[in-house]
């Protein structure tokens, strides 16, 4: 916990710089595929973090080799762990509200995040995912690795066509 606080502090110091950099890239190059709304510490107004696929790929990645109940056969997914992402941006929240393009929404308690699950997958079997293939972003767990991930709650949290995320304090 202390570590997390420390990291949060560190992230807060750097936040401005990173935001500037992201905005600069977002405008020019890649389309935004994920928007994170973080309430400001001072007034509570939301502050937006927009990320492109490249932004996500720049973060530490993780790969699962697993089957899912929605696909046939074993798949290889690569993405950034959700915990890494929010720590990267120093986001302090109790819950995370995740929403899909089709407006499917779930709430994820931050306390239940782990270092390696879930990930926000941006690549399936070595290729980026299209909207038609439940992409471009898909929150996934390593279902085969742990029976705890084969529950209805976890399945409901495995949101595909993710495009928005809101931190709730």
């Amino acid at each position, binding site marked *: 916990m202390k570590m997390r606080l420390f990291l949060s502090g560190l992230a807060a110091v750097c936040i401005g710089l990173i935001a500037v950099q992201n905005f600069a890239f977002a405008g020019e190059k890649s389309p935004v595929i994920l928007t994170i709304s973080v309430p400001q510490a001072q007034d509570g107004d939301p502050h937006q973090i927009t990320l492109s696929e490249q932004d996500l790929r720049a973060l530490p990645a993780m790969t699962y080799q697993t089957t899912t*109940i*929605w*696909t*046939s056969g074993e798949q290889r997914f690569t993405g950034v762990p959700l915990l890494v992402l929010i720590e990267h941006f120093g986001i302090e929240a109790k819950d995370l509200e995740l929403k899909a*393009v*089709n407006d499917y929404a779930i709430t994820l308690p931050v306390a239940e995040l782990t270092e390696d699950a879930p990930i926000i997958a941006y690549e399936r079997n070595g290729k980026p995912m*299209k*909207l*038609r*293939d*439940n992409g471009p972003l898909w929150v996934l767990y390593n279902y085969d690795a742990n*029976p705890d991930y*084969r*529950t*209805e709650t976890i*399945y*409901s949290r495995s949101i*595909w*066509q993710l495009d928005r995320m809101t931190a709730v304090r």
Partner: protein
Amino acid sequence: MPTDKVLSFVASRRLQLAALSAVVALCLLAASVLINAVFEKLDRYSTASQDGVYWTMSQIEVDQLKLIVELERMKVAQNPDFAQLRQRFDLFYSRVMTLRNAAVYRSILDGTDVAADVQAIFTRLDEMVVMIDGDDQSLLGSRDRILSLVTSMTTPIRDIAIAGISVGAARADGERNVLTQQIITLTVLTIMMLSALFLALLLVWRLYEDSQRQAEQSRNTTNRLTTILNTSQDGILVVGPSGEVQDTNGAADRMFALPQADKSSVPISNFLFRTDPDGGLTPLTGRRLLAECEQGSKRFDDLVVRSLDGREFPAEISADIARRGEMSVCICFVRDLSERLAAEAEIVSARDRALSGERAKARFLGMISHEMRTPLHGILGALDLLHDTGLTSEQERYAKVMKSSGQMLLTQISDALDMTQVGAGKMVLRRDVFDLDGMLQELVENQQALARAQNNKLELLIAKDGLGRVEGDRGRIYQVLLNVVSNAIKYTQNGQITIEAARAASSPDVDPIVEFQISDTGVGISEENLARVFDDFVRVGSSDANQPEGTGLGLGIARHLVTLMGGEIGAESLPGEGSLFWTRIPLPVKNRAPPAPRAETAPAVIAPLDVLVVEDNANNRLVIEAMLKNDGHRVTLACDGVEGVAFAAETLYDLILMDINMPRMDGIEATRRIRADNGASSSTRIVALTAHFSSDKATELRAAGMDAVETKPLRRATLRDILAGIATTMQAHNPSIVVDNSMLSQLGTSLSMASIIGLLDRFQAEGTQIIADLDTLHAMPPEVLADRLHGFSGSAATTGAVALQAILEQAETALRQGDKDTAAHLLKELPKIWTDTMAHLSARHRAA
């Protein structure tokens, strides 16, 4: 196995417990399998294999409607938003694709009638994808087509949703049913298991009660045992390996005077000792005791106890090892033997007293018998002599009565003596070779008069060839048969007594048994008495006055004698019909040749002899002297051994008759002296006269130098036999006495001179013939020759040619015994003796 055993086996607690345990174990196993199944099922519920199925199904419809709305808006919009449209399509597409890819939908939809609907949707989507992925202009152109395609999907999508619901519901129901079933089974099993456990508990409770009861019983037993041990008269010790007393009973405490407290401080070697062979005492240590008992229970009776208060007594110890866990202890029962030993000593001394009394009685009886025989000797001898003194018929009758009474008395005394000898085991047999047929004949002749007196007929039946000469104690066999026969005569009146004798086996070499049967037609013996007739001192029958007299010893003695001879005796009887007594006695054949009739040896044949009579009893001296003098012998009398020795030293006697019991010097000593002195009669034949014959005595007498032993009273017939033996021997060795002249003198009194001359002439002719044939005689078979010699010796006896008769008899005997050499040697002498005899006879004849 019998039914009740099976039942009791089934009823045994152990089996019940085992069965219940098995049931519990089975239930446990089944329950665990079921629980596993239920958990698996729960596990399946915890790891859901499907997402929100109904959500997805309904969302397909939502996404379809949203796509339709977007297409409708495009129709009216000035500036159609193509990106929005494509996004809507992609969302719809991806939703529908989930139906194809997700395993759960495939399993729900495959095989149902909506499978065709699904396929139709996919076909239309594929058609739409081409149009959506085209450029904006062509997309705009095909808008209506897309709209109609999407709209046409409405019905299949609804069908799919409905099918999903019903399949899902059925599946959920099924799974719930299975789970319910399993939970019910599990519950039943649990109830069963609980019941079994409850039963097991019940059983354990009863086992506990059983064991409580057993414990109670064993407590009672222990108490009882403790009481028994404490009331035991024997001292009981529990001894440890180092000899310490671990436990005792009250008797032991008193016996050894053990201290009340701290008994274990006293080792047993302080009060238990064993007697050494040399009489010393060695303390009995615990180690020694345990070592002795290592091989099982042990008993010593050589123990001496020295109790701690100083009392000492003999004791017996029985000890054995008992294991108390790891340690061995010795349990000892110690018994005070002082009373028992005292009682035993008492019994032994009582027995010794009784035995010595018994011996004294027997000795007394023997002595009395002996003392009675000596005066009887006088009476019977004198009666013999009286007979020859020309009695009147009345006197003769009285003398006869006296003689038969004396004879009876003698028999009874002999019986009593025999009985004491049998009782003392001193009875001995005098085995000799004798003529069995002759003996039986004699028996019958002797008993004939008695039989006639009872008006009985007495008959002897033996095989035609006879039984021949046998080896055995003639006197004793005679006694046995006499006892039985005289009994038969006594108990029979106006009847028939038959004596039969036959060999049991066809060949006497196989079995030497001769069976004698004496049957009568008398009163018979009851069955009850029959068993007792051979007992000692038993007289059967009522004690009325008509009973014949007797001691009742006869048959008892007969049994003893027969047993002694290795035979058996028995009786059968029918009261009123008669009795049959039988006895079987081994009598080996010694000479199969039928005995030739012997010429009666007339008393006058014996030449006058010099006889020394040594006898302290004046009456007996008188009787013997008279007997001898009547037969023409010269008699010298000596009153005791000293006189006898003196006479024998001076004069050569032909015979010495020696009494045994005499004052100053007894017969044994006298005989020894006579033999040792080298006096005139040192090699004379000495015949001992004793009232009491026993084998020990006979051996002693022979050792002293006696030649023969005769029992008193000495009868005239016996005396004549003795003298005849002397005469024969002497004449054979002393040819000077060739002819006994008295024989011819006697002949002269009864025969005419002419007859005597004729007799002598025939004798001469017979003798001359024999001598002439002598050389050829040797070639004859020995039997034939023996018969011929026998006939000739008879003639020689008649004429008083004693020397000739003697040598002929000796030769005959040798031949019959198969000794041809001796016979030939003797016959060589024959011509010379014949010449001498004829010389004597012719001289005599001339003189006459």
